[in-house]
């Protein structure tokens, strides 16, 4: 005897003819270049961190003088 808990709510489209959730043209363009887009943000983050380190180093030097 099989006892199943809970009921199924999620609708699966299946595999044939299925496509991911609708994307706008801008999203399709970004997704096509997602590696570049994420690399740009990582680059900006690195620049922010470097700027903060330089700012802290200057403040530290001013503090010591």
């Amino acid at each position, binding site marked *: 005897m099989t006892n199943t808990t809970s009921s199924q709510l999620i609708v699966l489209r299946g595999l044939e003819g299925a496509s991911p959730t609708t994307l706008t043209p801008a999203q399709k363009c970004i997704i096509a270049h997602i590696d570049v887009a994420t690399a740009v943000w990582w680059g900006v983050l690195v620049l922010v961190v470097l700027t903060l380190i330089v700012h802290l180093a200057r403040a530290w030097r001013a*503090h010591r003088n």
Partner: protein
Amino acid sequence: MTQLLKKLFPTTFDQRIIHAYQRFFSIQELEKELVLKWVFGASLFSYFTTFSFWVSSTVLTADAVEKGYAVCRPYFQGCTDWLFLHGLPNGYSQTVLYMGLFGLMLIAVYLMYRKEWVLAHMSIVLMYLWHALATFILSGQLGGNYDYYLFVLTTILLFLPHKEFFLKLCFVLFYALSTVAKIHPAWVAGTYFSALQTGLPLFPDWSIPFWTNLVIFMEMVGAWFLLSRPGLVQRLVLVFFIAFHLYSGILVKYHYPSVVLPTLIILFGLFYRKTPIPFDRRSIAGWVLVGLLVCMQSLPLFIPGDEKLTLEGNKYGLYMFESNHQCISTARITFTDGSEQVIYNESANARARCEPYRYWFRLNAFCKRNAAHIQSAAWTFDHSINGGPFLRIVDTDELCALQYRPLTHNDWIKTHSDEPEVVGYPVENIYD
């Protein structure tokens, strides 16, 4: 020494201890600075909003253990042995505890009114300890991002020197750290919101990537201007973040904005002034905390695989809106008498993180409770993120033998490089 302190601690020995307590936790800063007094009030309000949610939650109770839905933190999987409270309707201990904390809040407000900051500090420390214990040790289900904010900000407010500076720095740092979780198609392409039936609140679908990338930019770069000299730029950035938190409340409702907005407005609006960067010996504790926050946020980057798919290490740092999740968990248990039970769970709620760990923890508890009667147990776990395909990231016939390691990749959870089977595509889901 205030009059009430002298009455409560009359002997010289008592007063020495109070002085040491005052010095050790830099309470004189609290007594002197109006901005800190206001943040103290805001923290009290945050505890009120947090505990008003916890008082009705059952996840910290022995009832949750008995019914099999308690989940511990991955690094303390034995937490269920320590849960002893009983919530309504099974017992009174949980509501007794929270009404005790409510009484303590009233006392703290009275002590603030009397300017008895040492005693007010002592009363809020008890709330701090219970909040920290519950968030990080006793349960794996209570640690929302707002709890991380509350924990870190009150740690600074209550215990560290240079309170005003480190409160401001860590507040801004939180914005920047949250972007580490957002550098992902969920935000860079905005697929989190286009996968929702209702889309991004108030704005048309075509504008989703613009808004999501604007948020990343403001949190990563713009937020630092909250710390700049008082002027137009500082005020404009403040207005942006106030608007951002009010807007995000359309989805996250009151809890998050109630924890974050008052402190944001107090620190960077009402009482803002540029605070010099401290480099003295007393500032070391604050800098160590900053380093720890950065390390904890970076931790998932060192665990192989897509963190958003496997959710390994996801909650060691901020994880707000990191991805839109849907999942299906199906466990087939065959008992020694030949009968079979299917334990089926699914979630179509974008907000509910589909951690394989959480489902495994509950199934593992089931295995332990029924160890003598289980012949075999198979388990599949299908996970879709941001409207992408459902990937079968767990497929095992050895459910009851699985172990979960908290700091490394678990081989039984597949990531993209393992090329997990695609089992279907989801329709647009909901945010609840």
